[in-house]
């Protein structure tokens, strides 16, 4: 203990001085934060508007549809993660015990558990608790079922899960028009829909940018650089103000469609660059070997190059999803969704809370929700990265 202190905190006079100053400063900041959370913070505004922050103004008699969709998504996610886990798991290590598994889960998912616990603590009804139990159950069942599936059907399962997710979100929109969605739901669903739709476009653009056809290469490059060179919020404002001009007047698209169009086009340019990196990481010998074995260019691309390239870029794609999840807040300010951030500002303007300076409390809560989501995802992507051994082979 003393040796550790000496080695890490008090190596020299200057070092000790730094330790003392930084230590007292951080203790003070920590004290202020604890006091703010426990004593001075007025959390009434969050407590009253919890439902608004989580699911927006979702009608109460349609809440069953919402819950069913979320449970179904949890189940599909469980199946998909089990299948993906099988793909990447190493066979040599012995299976962990139940205790090890639980500990591992607790270390990995504590931020999520923290915010779910916080929401349950603040909520006054039993609905959220039932939903949490349902989702956790569905994920577990999904993982167990996914583990039992034979290896042959895995790609099919992933595709079915993806389409199932999109279909269930579509089913959800029957109860409550997309344009009226709100809360963190809108952030999460906008990100999920956009990333699943932009993925095929991104792969095509990446292949186009690396193809041997000059015109195709030029078109892909122009598209990618166009969307990477302009800020996202400017594109969203552009969609708000000009998209109506480019479609026949009969179908004027709603705010959600405009947002999804922009997010898909914008993100597919970034996904294309990620996939291009993956394509470049596939050794040239692989292509030459495939050609030597008599494969023509198209099977070479789809059976040899792409599987290896995509496997290498999974962590970067997760990173892109995280930044998309954070960027969905821009849809709130540009297109007027009451998403988590915009809704958080709106509730401080309610009659009973106006003019009391509650911005810091609500923004802290909103920030915690975003942080927990993206921190968990980014740590999972790092784990995946080391599991896949990207860069180490």
């Amino acid at each position: 203990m003393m040796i550790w202190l000496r080695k890490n905190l008090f190596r020299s006079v200057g070092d000790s001085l730094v330790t003392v100053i930084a230590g007292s400063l951080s203790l003070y900041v920590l004290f202020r934060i604890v006091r703010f959370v426990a004593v001075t913070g007025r959390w009434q505004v969050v407590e009253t508007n919890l439902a608004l922050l989580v699911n927006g103004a979702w009608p109460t008699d349609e809440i069953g549809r919402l819950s069913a969709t979320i449970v179904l998504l949890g189940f599909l996610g469980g199946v998909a993660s089990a299948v993906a886990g099988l793909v990447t798991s190493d066979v040599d290590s012995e299976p962990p015990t139940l205790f090890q598994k639980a500990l591992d889960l607790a270390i990995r998912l504590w931020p999520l558990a923290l915010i779910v616990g916080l929401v349950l603590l603040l909520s006054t009804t039993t609905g959220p608790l039932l939903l949490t139990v349902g989702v956790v159950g569905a994920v577990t069942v999904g993982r167990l079922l996914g583990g039992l599936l034979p290896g042959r059907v895995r790609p099919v399962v992933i595709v079915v899960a993806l389409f199932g997710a999109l279909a269930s979100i579509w089913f959800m929109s029957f109860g409550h028009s997309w344009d009226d969605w709100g809360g963190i739901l809108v952030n999460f669903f906008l990100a999920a829909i956009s990333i699943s739709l932009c993925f095929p476009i991104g792969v095509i653009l990446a292949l186009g940018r690396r193809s041997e056809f000059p015109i195709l290469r030029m078109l892909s490059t122009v598209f990618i650089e166009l969307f990477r060179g302009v800020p996202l919020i400017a594109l969203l404002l552009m969609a708000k103000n000009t998209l109506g001009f480019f479609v026949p007047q009969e179908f004027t698209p709603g705010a959600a469609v405009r947002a999804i169009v922009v997010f898909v086009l914008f993100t597919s340019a970034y996904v294309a660059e990620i996939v291009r990196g993956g394509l470049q990481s596939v050794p040239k010998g692989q292509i030459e070997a495939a050609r030597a074995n008599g494969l023509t260019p198209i099977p070479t691309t789809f059976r040899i190059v792409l599987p290896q390239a995509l496997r290498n870029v999974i962590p970067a794609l997760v990173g892109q999803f995280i930044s998309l999840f954070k960027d969905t807040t821009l849809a709130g300010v540009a297109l007027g969704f009451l998403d988590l951030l915009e809704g958080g500002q709106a509730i401080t303007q309610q009659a009973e809370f106006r003019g009391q300076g509650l911005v810091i409390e609500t923004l802290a809560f909103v920030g915690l929700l975003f942080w927990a989501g993206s921190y968990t995802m980014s740590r999972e992507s790092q784990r995946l990265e080391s599991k896949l051994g990207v860069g180490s082979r």
Partner: protein
Amino acid sequence: MNSSEKTPFWRNVAVLRWAFQLAIVAVVGVIIAILVNNLLVNSSSQGIPLGFGFLSQPASFPITANDFRDTQPVWQAMYEGVLNTLRVVLVGFVLATVFGVLIGLGRLSGNWLIRTISTVYIEIVRNVPLLLIVIFAYLGLVLEVFPRIEDSWDLAGTIIVNGRGFSIPWITGPFVGLLAAVVLSIAAGLAVRRWRLRVAESKDESAYVVPWMAAAMVAVLFWVGFFAGLGFSSPSIDGRNVVGGMTMQPEYFALLFALVTYTASHIAEIVRGSVQSVAKGQVEASQAMALNGWQRMRYVIFPQALRVAIPPLGNQYLNLMKNSSLGFAVSYFELTKVVTTSVGTRSPAVPAFLVLMIIYLIMSLTISALVNIANRKMEVVGR
């Protein structure tokens, strides 16, 4: 098959390749034609012109911080918007780099506390939406935490902070004089450096380049500055106003604060990664050659780390430039806010946003080009 037989054109690879590409061009062309046709039909049915004549129409909205009146034309409003964007972006580049490098080195520090603080900072800031930081800086920090002007925070007459802005000491006098002083001082510094290096080589004694250079630069700076009529002004409170120094508008301060905080956390990770990428043998070799800590950093680690860091750093600068458009959310009149406001008053949407896109593309391509030049220079020096 008889070899003298000509390959039919539908099996000729060269023909097929061009046919394929032409087909794609045709598809893209048709899509664009449909969109343009829709645009023409919709514009004429709504009576909205499509030309760029609106640029010389009066803007009909003021930008008070820039002394821009609503009778001035739209193109001047856009010019002011570009200036405001550049103002926040260029200052942001410098501050984000400084803080990012400090935090990145903090993450590599031998001191556990410094390392932990840096890590916590990075993990918090990187995982929160930038827009949330912008809005927090404006609605929370500037409007709630900063005091009213009567109770301003006053740091010994150098920095004055209140809800109306963030004031720092600043240089007064003609801009040409300032430019001359800076250029001459850099020239003097370089001249002194050459002289000291030559002396050190011919007489085989220590060069002391840094102290000599610093002394020469400071001396020239003050000497030229004095004759060019440059002065120094600190902010002070006069009744209900802050006079002297330079006061940053609340919107500008909030946007700059958020951009610097956010970008610094990303730059810190780049710094850490690039320093760690320097081969361990390099550090050991420099220790074996008895270089001290500063020399090791300056001559061994830094040049090699920089080469790794430049491409991702360039990406961060590009992101910072694009993220400056979040000034829209706090009504800081940068380019996006100006164009959107002008569309809201009178300007036709499609041409106005086309101009905005072109300006952003020019700025993006400029930054990319500069980064590429820096990248090439480093590689030539390195190998």
